[in-house]
């Protein structure tokens, strides 16, 4: 009983700041400027399908890169000596103490044609590389900014794996590769799933990274929504419709991820 009453503030908070705004988004998406019901906004979203495809594509690449880079790192941290783990985790989080905009801005000065990297290349007599204002730069910005959200859940899952399970596998004659593929990886699946979700969702809906590193011509869904609310058009109805489609998309993606999560858990259970 006590636990229930303690959750009331949280419930009120959820309703006020999550449920009501979502309902407002739906209401805005289904009405026109005068407030009359219309499906025109939703039909108008189709015009921007390219932007959706590009956002999903870049978001997926960024998530895959984050996983490939983040997993080994999380593994190394989890396997290092206890007193060192705290320092290493802090190093992962350290960039997050700095403002998000500032970090992205710093990449701009690094990647520019007359930026630090190109100046270093020129000093070494190497040909310059064009990096800024490309899709690669946008993906780099996403990976850099969101990789801590991949590493941290992976790390916390990996540290919780009971070492005796791995020892048992080794006793039974499994080599390192087999131990990793049959024990460590399946047991860390919940971390992989939540890492993927936590990187993919913000990466798909980001707008400032593509603005700063993509030169404004690699438009993403976030930019599009930003244009509708703060741009000259001021069309919150279309903006809400785009947000609504994005929300549906993310909801489906999370549904898919959840399916994998259960899978991993049951298989893990069978293994244990």
């Amino acid at each position, binding site marked *: 009983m006590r636990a229930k009453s303690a959750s009331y503030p949280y419930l009120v908070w959820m309703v006020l700041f999550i449920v009501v705004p979502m309902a407002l988004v739906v209401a805005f998406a289904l009405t026109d400027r005068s407030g009359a019901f219309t499906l025109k906004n939703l039909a108008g979203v189709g015009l921007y*399908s390219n932007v959706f495809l590009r956002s999903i594509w870049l978001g997926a690449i960024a998530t895959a890169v984050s996983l490939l880079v983040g997993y080994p790192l999380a593994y190394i941290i989890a396997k290092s000596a206890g007193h060192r783990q705290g320092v290493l985790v802090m190093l992962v989080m350290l960039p997050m103490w700095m403002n998000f905009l500032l970090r992205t801005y710093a990449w701009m000065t690094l990647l*520019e044609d007359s930026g630090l990297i190109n100046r270093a290349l020129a000093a070494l007599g190497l040909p310059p590389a064009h990096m800024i204002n490309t899709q690669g730069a946008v993906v780099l910005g996403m990976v850099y900014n969101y990789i801590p959200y991949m590493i941290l859940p992976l790390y916390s899952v990996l540290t919780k794996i009971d070492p005796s399970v791995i020892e048992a596998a080794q006793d039974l004659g499994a080599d390192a590769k087999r131990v990793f593929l049959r024990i460590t990886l399946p047991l860390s699946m919940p971390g992989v799933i939540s890492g993927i979700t936590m990187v993919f969702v913000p990466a798909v809906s980001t707008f400032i990274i593509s603005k700063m590193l993509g030169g404004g011509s690699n*438009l993403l869904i976030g*930019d599009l929504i930003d244009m509708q609310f703060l741009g000259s058009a*001021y069309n919150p109805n279309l903006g809400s419709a785009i947000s609504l489609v994005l929300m549906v998309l993310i909801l489906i993606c999370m549904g*898919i991820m959840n399916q994998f999560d259960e899978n991993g858990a049951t298989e893990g259970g069978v293994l244990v």
Partner: protein
Amino acid sequence: MKKWIAAVLSAVLLAGCSPAFAAESGQAAPKDGVTLNVYNWGEYIASGSDGTMDVNAEFTKQTGIRVNYTTFEDNESMYSKLAGGGASYDVIFPSDYMVSKLIKEKLVQKLDFRNIPNYRYIDPEYRNLVYDPKNEYSVPYTWGVVGIFYNKKYVKEKVDSWKILWDRRYAGKILMFDNPRDAFGIAQEILGYSFNSTNPEEWNAAAELLEKQKPLVQAYVMDQIFNKMSSGEAWLAPYYAGDAATLVADNPNIGFAIPTKEKTNFFVDAICIPSSAKHKKEAEAYIDFLCRPEVAAANMEAVGYSTPESAARKLLPEEMREDPIIYPPKSVLKNSETFRDLPEGTGLLLDTLWAQVKMGSSGDTGTLLAVLGAFLAVYIGIVVYKKIKRKKELQ
């Protein structure tokens, strides 16, 4: 949610207040002890920081009216605050096209010019402009024109046409406005169309021209031009003249030119009083204070834009007063046009075309549905597969 409540509350309040407002006649003196909510652009007033007058403090000292001063970044964010009813302001500083939009939507109210005697200092050529033809709602605060910044090291030719932004020799070194009105404005200047055209064909032609320019454009940016121009990353960038002074003064390599072969955009930032203002008398006293030549001069000295008052211009230091960037020759102003609010249909078209220019090409509903369908199919596929698997396991 908060915004929404505030909107309802302020609507109720407004409905209750409006007869009282109408009944009150123009002459009551401003009350001291009142706090005025002023909403201005960032860094757009003399704040006393570099030896200039602290305008707001001075106003409070002279009238006893306190000033709660807040700032916005662009017209649109100011508009969405005002339209959303989230906050109440007494004095706002919208640009030309935004003034006409606010007038049309009845979000600003008529000024009582009897309370603004210093309006007499405003030069005739800055009165009755297209956005407020009878000059009933606004007082001009600053003005300026759009020109081209260029790096003298790499751009040796004379910059006198907007077409230079389409020159292949400078491919990858050109910056462009990241807002549709200004970007389309440049295309319209080249094509000789009006900025305020309502002809869809003209807008389509302008969009086509911008699409042609896209491969040459390094990036679509706003404030970032300062960094990218001074570091030499970009060589050509259109921007507002008011900001030129600082950029050109800090970098001997950077020049500024106003194209003369075509027209340019003449813009005005004005002062208005929102319909929802609670202290109209005091707001008018504030506007009157800003129109005093010595106050206007102090503001222009700090801000770097141009004043619509000759009396104020005379008080400026000579290098500012005679700067051809800040005060271009009259011929430039004659060959210029001012933005007005676009009708809703044209506004939507502009927005769609702008998104298309930036996207490359437009998509279609089929593709979007296919994407959503594919994701949904994967989800359903997994669920069904698991069910079948479970059934088999049970058997």
